[in-house]
């Protein structure tokens, strides 16, 4: 059964049509990559999956519920199934690492403070940041921030994790460690994953299926192996990072 089903999704910002009839499904337990050039609407699409943006037309069904018809308070309940890692990590800069990671548990007040501290330490160990509980986000490097962001997304054991450009702005070594971490999270926790990226190494190492977003639509779909072997000029250029000769001439 499809965990997420996107049907004929359209979104405009002013005169610009960012998404122009997007259709795809995400199956339970799979790791899906959405790739595309900068500014093509990947992050906009990802935000629709969790209800941070509402479509102009079309629908986003999550576990059988249509997000497009829900108000913000109803969406809060659906979002408990999700964890999301933001491009900038989006840590709360006035809270410590422990307070960031344990945010949801601290707000719910269902667990005692020692139990929350234990869960925070456990999930920080998972992202290899044990012992950083007392640090503030400003004291962390870019890679560490992403790990804390992921720990925050994982602490309440979501069924699906969304990654918005997880390796953007990181050096190759740190990017590699983040890729390994995402792959480990997918394998260990058996969560459904949707990764928005333009880093083909992340695609190859982490995901099982790839969608290429181009001009507001899904242009191509397939496995990473099929994408790397594709003879389609657009797919080929994107996968191998080759600029369009027409654009170079301009």
């Amino acid at each position, binding site marked *: 059964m499809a965990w997420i089903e996107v049907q004929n999704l359209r979104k405009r910002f002013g005169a610009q049509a960012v998404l122009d009839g997007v259709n795809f499904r995400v199956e339970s337990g799979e790791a899906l990559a959405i790739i595309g050039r900068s500014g093509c609407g990947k992050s906009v699409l990802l935000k629709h999956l969790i209800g941070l943006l509402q479509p102009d037309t079309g629908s986003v069904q999550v576990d059988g519920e249509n997000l497009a018809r829900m108000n*913000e308070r109803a969406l809060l*309940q659906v*979002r408990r199934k999700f964890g999301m890692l933001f491009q900038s990590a989006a840590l*709360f*800069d006035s809270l410590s690492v422990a307070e960031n990671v344990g945010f949801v548990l601290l*707000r719910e007040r269902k667990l005692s403070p020692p139990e929350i501290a234990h869960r925070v330490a456990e999930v920080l160990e998972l992202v290899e940041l044990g012992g950083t509980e007392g640090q503030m986000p400003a004291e962390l490097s870019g890679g560490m921030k992403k790990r804390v962001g992921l720990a925050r997304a994982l602490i309440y054991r979501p069924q699906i994790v969304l990654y918005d450009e997880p390796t953007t702005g990181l050096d190759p070594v740190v990017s590699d460690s983040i890729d390994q971490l995402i792959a480990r999270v997918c394998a260990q926790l058996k969560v459904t994953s949707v990764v928005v990226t333009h880093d083909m190494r992340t695609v190859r190492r982490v995901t099982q299926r790839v969608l290429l977003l181009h001009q507001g639509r899904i242009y191509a779909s397939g496995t990473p192996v099929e994408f790397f072997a594709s003879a389609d000029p657009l797919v080929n250029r994107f996968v191998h990072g080759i600029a369009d000769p027409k654009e170079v001439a301009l």
Partner: protein
Amino acid sequence: MKAETKSWLRHPLEGLGRYALLCMEILRSLLGQRPRLPDLVYQLYFIGVKSQSVVLVTGAFTGMVLCAQTFFQFHKVAMDTATLAVVSVSLGSELGPVLTSLMVAGRVGAAMAAELGTMRVTEQIDALRTLATHPVDYLVVPRVLATVIALPLLTAEAICIGILAAYVVGVFLLGIDPAYSWHNMLRYTDWRDILIGFMKATIFGAVVATVSCYKGMNCRQGAEGVGRATTEAMVYASITILMSNFFLTMFLNRLFYGLD
């Protein structure tokens, strides 16, 4: 030209609509759940305790100036001992709440808009939403409640220090008779003047917090967006206070003193 006119009309109307929706969401949150005490206490500290120096200086010097000006006019008609009564009524029902609210709008409103605006442009508000937390519950309601509680208390402080400063200036600097002045002040200051002042301060508190939170939550991207939201929060809150003060004065005086 037609399109320009439409957008000239549409943007303010859209803004008013979004502001009304935010106010409705605040009410829904207040009715639906109890805000967390630590969040409220922190905001009370930031808005109430940290604003005291500004408010006390404002109250003191306003009282002193008002006393001196009133005395210079009243002295011409030998009504020196009515000076403190004028100061008390003016501070209690008008200058106390208005000036305190304007100072709080400048200090706290701008800070609220900047903080929420920065959270918005760095996706922290989106992060809150993904963590199943309504931004209005977590960010807006504690600020609105704290401002609504703190502003009447700050106003009371400003009125008290203003009257005290006026008494010192009037008695020790201008030589007004202390006993008659004090007696006239108590005689001509009605409890309704003070109640009107506190009611205004409560309403202005809600105005400062909701306008500032609205501007912060809806700010545009980038540093320019945050800067603009901060300025607009202060300007719009101040203008709303000054304009609504007139209508509140008319309404509350008719309500408490009758139509005559």
